[in-house]
């Protein structure tokens, strides 16, 4: 059975554009994704929060240092993830990241621009974890957490 996460790319984009027109906001659902052969099947909300805030430095059950992939602060996926899930405004997030970086806690997420490039990055690395527009999820990545707008 094919579900929405396996829809071809073009259809997915078209679908999210339709959503855009009919919904008040232009945001689509955001999926947190890992490498398709990762042993992670799903993550809890708290695990996702902690991973993107650098408070969990390894991917659960993998023994791998997490290579967290972030997107541009202007991107729709970034805005949704940080405002709805992590609950941080852009200003607060930048302060948090500065404190994190210079207090010896660890390195910052890798910056990758655009959902497609995030997908390529995650498809390439067993350590990577990123987030993309849920409509763009295909076989090259595995969705382990879904953040819905409603």
């Amino acid at each position, binding site marked *: 059975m094919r579900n929405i996460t396996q829809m071809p790319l073009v259809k997915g984009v078209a679908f999210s554009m339709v959503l855009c027109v009919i919904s008040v906001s232009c945001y689509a659902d955001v999926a947190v994704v890992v490498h398709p052969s990762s042993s992670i099947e799903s993550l809890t909300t*708290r695990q996702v929060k*902690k991973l993107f805030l650098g*408070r*969990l*430095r*390894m*991917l*659960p059950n993998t*023994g*791998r*240092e997490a*290579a967290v992939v*972030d997107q*541009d*602060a202007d991107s729709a996926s970034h805005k949704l993830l940080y405002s709805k899930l992590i*609950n941080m*405004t852009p*200003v*607060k997030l*930048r*302060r*948090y*990241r*500065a*404190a994190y*970086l*210079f*207090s*010896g*806690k*660890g*390195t*910052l*997420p*890798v*910056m990758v621009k655009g959902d497609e490039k995030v997908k390529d990055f995650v498809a390439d690395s067993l*350590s990577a974890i990123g987030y993309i527009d849920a409509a763009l999820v295909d076989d090259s990545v595995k969705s382990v957490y879904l953040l819905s707008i409603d």
Partner: protein
Amino acid sequence: MIRFVRFWQNLGLFLTQRLLFVLLFLPVHVIAASSEEALQLSGFASFGAGKLSRDDAPFLNYAEGWSFRSDTIVGGQAQYQFTNRWSSTIQVVARGFTFDDNDKFDPVLEWLFTSYQWSPETRFRVGRMRTPLYLFSDSLEIGYAYPWVRPPVDIYSYLLAPLANFDGVDFSTNVDFGEADLDVQIFAGVSRGTYIDFDIELSPIFGVNFVSHWDSLTLRYGVTLGYTDAASEGLSAFASNYDFFASQIPIFKEIRDSHETEDELFQYHAVGLQWDYENWSVISEAYTTVGPGKDFSNDAKGWYVSFTKQIQDFAPYMVFGYYKNEFSDDISSLIAESKITYPVGGPLGPELDGLREINLLILDDFNEKGRSYTVGVRYDFRQNAAFKVEVEYFDSTSQLTRAALSDSKQDTVLLSMVVDVVF
């Protein structure tokens, strides 16, 4: 010689001011995220300016004229990921003002540690690290990371200066309770530093630090214990005036020797709270220092509470603070005791009487308390830079300065501003 030193100081200041312009024109996304490389380089800087309402009590070295050094700082950091689990971090900081007279922008090694990630929650570190005395201990120099021009002086000032770092090991882990979680850090090592002319060494220093996050609330409790040696060149020189009497009479030997602390246990307890509610943020901390209550020791306490409201890129803030330092009455009781057997005007002569009186005055200098009130605003004018300006009022400054002025119960106002950059 002095002229030569001045030249280098001015050169340092000149270079840091030029650096500000360079940093402000760097690409803005640097702090947003890093690259994929194993070696990561980053840096931070603050460029401060300030003036004080008076010249006789130079708080943090500020005076009546504008000066640009006291809150000016530049730091660089390199992180290297060796393997999946092993990494190293080094951080070097140059300051325009310190409590140990190193204010020539000489670079100081602040952090140098190797870290082993044992599990997703747990890691070990060995090397030079920040002593976790307070909520913002880890990011003390990173002005960009906190709301104010500098962390509230009522608790972040003199205590921290000599003990800011320790060389040793630490273990940290995170325990999850569903809605809330708890970071636990246990550490041990040695710490040494200088505050004005006090050489202080804590060997060993050890402690535990708990930080709990629950929704938008952060709570902290930390306790640090240290076996402390402390001596001041000036004070020891003064105490040597007792040498003649000390060689004859045991109580004067005791008085003389009490001007130094050797291997005494000091405890530092601190609690902290941060609560972010919508655009409001409340931060508060309190600490108490418990000394051995004898020899040259003190009991100190302090607290502050800070309110911030974020209005787009502006964040006005208010801070109230208080601190109190009570010097051990050990020496003054010994002096009182000596007066029973060897009364004032007695056969040992006026020299001893004068010495004892001066001694009591010196000791009283260390007893003090003060309040502070601050209002200011932070403006995030670029993604990697913030400008802050604040006015702070104190009713006492003595122990926070490098001039030990007793009973300086006079109003002091400090106007200061700073540009904080991360890159």
